[in-house]
């Protein structure tokens, strides 16, 4: 697995994945839907797959002494790493944003720990929709990405609407007031758990799809 991982970063990862990490600075924008920063990273991940078609990544990978499921596992690790990196890199800017400008974000969720919980869920949704759909053909990337974007947007709309319509959620989650940290922490933990579950399920589905595929 270590070798496949090396291969991923040496040959497969698209440079935009690193570039999009810089978009963490967008959390310094006073009024902005902060989910967008994380959306961009899914675009970077999409580019890894799209570029893989151009470079015949799967052709090379199948020449290696590995099982097909190992290739899926290595790619999942790569995806997860960039999702986690995006979150980790963004956290300091979220803190900085609130220090520099404590005013309310008028364009969506505050940059708090609950936001990161929701982002974890969003990444989980991306993983469960995009990855198994890609591994069904190991070629088609456009439609799976469009559908995964639609699913993520739907999730964000539902989350935002729920938070804005339900006063309890609005008061406890859409705030930087540290009094509500425990409630926000619960959302964060639920986000992680959901993301792990969805990604594990996505992995099982992707392996099954890819194993079935004739290359």
């Amino acid at each position, binding site marked *: 697995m270590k070798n496949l991982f090396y291969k991923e970063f040496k*040959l497969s990862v698209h440079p935009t994945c690193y570039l999009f990490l810089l978009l963490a600075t967008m959390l310094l924008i006073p009024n902005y839907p902060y989910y967008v920063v994380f959306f961009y990273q899914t675009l970077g991940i999409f580019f890894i797959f799209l570029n893989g078609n151009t470079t*015949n990544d799967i052709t090379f990978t199948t*020449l290696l*002494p590995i099982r097909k499921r190992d290739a899926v596992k290595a790619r999942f690790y790569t995806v997860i790493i960039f999702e986690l990196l995006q979150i980790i890199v963004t956290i300091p800017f979220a803190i900085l944003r609130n220090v520099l400008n404590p005013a309310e974000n008028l364009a969506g969720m505050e940059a708090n720990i609950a936001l990161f919980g929701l982002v974890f869920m969003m990444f989980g949704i991306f993983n469960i929709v995009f990855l198994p759909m890609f591994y069904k053909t190991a070629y088609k990337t456009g439609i799976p990405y469009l559908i995964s974007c639609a699913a993520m947007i739907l999730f964000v709309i539902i989350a935002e609407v729920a938070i804005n319509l339900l006063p309890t959620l609005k008061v406890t989650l859409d705030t930087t007031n540290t009094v509500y940290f425990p409630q926000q922490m619960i959302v964060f933990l639920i986000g992680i758990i959901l993301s792990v579950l969805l990604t594990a399920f996505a992995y099982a589905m992707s392996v099954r799809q890819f194993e079935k595929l*004739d290359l």
Partner: protein
Amino acid sequence: MEVLSVKNINKGYEKFQLRNVSFCVEGGCIMGFIGRNGAGKTTTMKSMLNLVHPDSGAIQFFGMDLQAHEFEIKQRISFIFGAAQYYSQSKLKTIADVYRRFYKTWDEALYQTYLSRFELDSEKKIKQLSQGMSIKFALSLALSHHAELLILDEPTSGLDPVSRDELLTIFEDIVDHEGASIFFSTHITSDLDKNADDITYIKNGEIFASEKRESFVDSYRIVEGSATLLPQLLKKKIIGFHERKGEFSGLLRKEDANDTQNLKISTADLESIMVCIERKETDEEPVL
């Protein structure tokens, strides 16, 4: 000892089917896998490597079942499918740096030998290689970890005659000095005339023959002569009968070639055998 055993592989597609494909490769042998385009060579080879899933059948390497020991088996074999058509923007050295990590038996000195033998510059990018050079690069990778069995799909197509000859000499060295076996597909049958011990011939998804090359070639004769001197009974036995301007040519099984007065009988080679066997019925009657 059998290094590869393929038994009763079946794989159905909408318009093509592999049917009961069986053969085995012995240790220290070169086996040529021949058949015309679309006969099922690549599908068979991909099935052997778990890249295509056969509907039924069994594949064993070194006495081990492929499904149960895929990881271990793939460490001991090497395979390429044509030229290195991947990561066109990457340098050869970058790709080799990734590839070599996967093999415990990687021999860097041997790899460097192949690079200089094939005149490959590891600073070049894949996109800068010609078709022939890119095959040579793919081969350099495949040949550098002391694989016990090399499975090569069309390794000689796209190479110039000198390079082909050089490659075939390398095959001989690998088999003679390392005791490895080579299974390679080709439609350039003259490559096999040079050094294949065995041949497996696939036709329309079925194994037509799998035996020693010499005995296979020796079981046929080329027959030529004037069509007027050809007895009707013998004509029916001719495989791939072709007539033009009163002269005919075709193939006979060795046992049918005894009673052929006034006709020219000569030994066959793989190409003429394959051409005659594959020659369509329409050749017997002029189309125009």
